[in-house]
């Protein structure tokens, strides 16, 4: 049935009005927070963070506070390799269970010998054995679908990235870009054996392959546009908050001040165009528990075309000032070419995407193959009722 808009509109209107009135207060609070950030030194923040028994995800401040870094000149010759993935999920109703994962890879070379390669590589996972993670110690198994399929996808993206980097790394500064984050958030909540196999086994193995190429000027980074993250404001909050506050009675100086303010709100206010913030380190549980110190992930924020983006780097890259510098300027260049978004990430996404027509064609292919073998399958009633929408 169509939406009954009348019932919803009223509540939306009220909410929109309150945003507007909150706006000016919001600006004042952000300014205050920035002031605090600028005048507080990182050690103080770090100390407070370690002491506290808060549960917030708070970033470790590595740099001098509030330093602004402008991008430097990019080298004449450089390369970008970006990877993205997309998948067709399992059809519950089909007698043949399969998943198609499409990895899009792009390799752009700039400078004296410009060239470009666009490709997509489909991977199929068919049948029970391929579509589950099995616990070797018990009969437990987890199906590769939904969230877990997303994790598997992230692993395969990194794997393709590593493959390509190994083929192309030749000393030319090479930016290896991934959309989103280097931190495998979605693995939290999965079974231990899953985490063990997928993260510690496969994901970190790929990271390691890439790490080995760092002397060949390979810069691994992830790009997240308009991030919702608050690990920097959370650290500031820890400093400001007194320990007696609660949700029902938030402290004025700390939590009320910081409430609703995200990292991007702060940095957009004082980072000029194309400049980056100082470096931070992620203290996510995933990293502390599973990545270990060897594969720590650092990050900084960047002002691109009036919008904040979060760039994550593995620590071996962030610790190398040249590579850190290159990550900044090369990403800026990619965003210029992509009119606000890294063109390589955009194109790798285009290569990965499986559009509706392709999805339907795939389904028809399956149907035809089944029919050729004489297997006539009927979808479930629910499926049919969704598909045909009859009166």
């Amino acid at each position, binding site marked *: 049935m169509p939406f009954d808009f009348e019932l919803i509109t009223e509540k939306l209107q009220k909410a929109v009005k309150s945003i507007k009135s909150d706006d000016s207060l919001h600006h004042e609070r952000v300014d205050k927070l920035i002031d605090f950030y600028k005048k507080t030194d990182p050690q103080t923040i770090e100390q407070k963070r370690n002491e506290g028994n808060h549960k917030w995800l708070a970033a470790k401040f590595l740099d001098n506070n509030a330093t602004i870094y402008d991008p430097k000149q990019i080298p004449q010759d450089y390369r970008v390799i970006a990877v993205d993935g997309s998948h067709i999920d399992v059809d519950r109703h089909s007698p043949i269970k399969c998943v198609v994962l499409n990895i899009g890879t*792009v390799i752009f070379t*700039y400078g004296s010998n*410009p*060239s*470009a390669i666009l490709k997509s590589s489909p991977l199929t996972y068919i049948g029970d054995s391929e579509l589950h993670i099995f616990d070797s110690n018990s009969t437990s198994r987890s199906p590769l679908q939904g969230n877990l399929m997303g994790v598997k996808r992230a692993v395969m993206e990194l794997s393709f990235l590593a493959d390509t980097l190994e083929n192309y790394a030749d000393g030319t500064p090479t930016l290896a870009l991934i959309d989103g984050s280097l931190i495998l958030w979605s693995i939290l909540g999965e079974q231990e054996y899953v985490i063990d196999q997928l993260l510690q086994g496969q994901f970190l193995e790929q990271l390691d392959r890439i790490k080995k190429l760092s002397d060949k000027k390979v810069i691994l980074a992830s790009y997240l546009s308009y991030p919702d993250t608050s690990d920097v404001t959370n650290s500031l909050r820890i400093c400001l908050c007194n320990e007696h506050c609660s949700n029902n009675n938030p402290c004025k100086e700390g939590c009320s001040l910081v409430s609703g303010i995200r990292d991007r709100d702060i940095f957009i206010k004082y980072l000029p165009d194309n400049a980056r913030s100082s470096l931070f380190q992620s203290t996510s549980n995933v990293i502390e528990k599973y990545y270990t110190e060897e594969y720590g992930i650092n990050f900084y924020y960047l002002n691109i075309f009036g919008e904040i983006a979060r760039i994550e780097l593995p620590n071996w890259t962030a610790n190398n000032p040249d590579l850190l510098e290159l990550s900044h300027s090369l990403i800026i260049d990619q965003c210029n*070419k992509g009119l606000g978004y890294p*063109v*390589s990430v955009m*194109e790798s996404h285009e290569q990965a995407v499986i559009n509706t027509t392709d999805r339907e064609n795939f389904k028809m292919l399956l149907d035809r193959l089944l029919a050729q073998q004489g297997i006539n399958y009927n979808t479930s009633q629910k499926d049919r009722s969704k598909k045909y929408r009859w009166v």
Partner: protein
Amino acid sequence: MKNQNPIAEIIESSTKSLIVQCYELYQAPKLGTLIKTLDDPSIIGIVFNVFTEPLDPSRRPIARGPFKNEPEKLYEDNPHLSLLFRTQAEIFILGHVDQLKTYIYELPLLPAKIHTGISLLDEEEILAFTNTRAFLELLIEGLDIITEEIFSISIRRISGYHNDAEKFLHDTGKDVAGNFHHDQQKLISLLRKLGRGPINE
């Protein structure tokens, strides 16, 4: 077997016309040139439209300028762009080769196969194909589709291969005149175009 190097590939095919995708971006056969399909029976046609469009029709190009440098630098600075577009040409069919290897100035009974390559006719083939007035029949019939501008460009190109280019243009003008009784002004404008003389490049 001369000139067998394909420069483009058929991606749409009918008995009246073809659409081919050129192997090199922006490298298409010129308007009004004669091409042949590289299969059996070979089909002969004339290029009447060349266009470039994105490979993915849902991704439309947006303006990137204004440019401080030359626009060609854009392709150098963004090497992936050349991979996102394709240049295509529309071909109007003028005849085909029969089993006896003679030119038949009629439409083929079946369309050419998709993915067949096409190449340009060489000088010998052009002269052989256009040595009789019959080749004009389908060309004149298709004036509405290929437009008078392309018609005159193609005749002017072909005339450059004949010994007496002016006579070729003149004779073609006479043949065309017979088809335009109701619209002399249109005929005059077409004849003026033909009168510009042979094209030799």
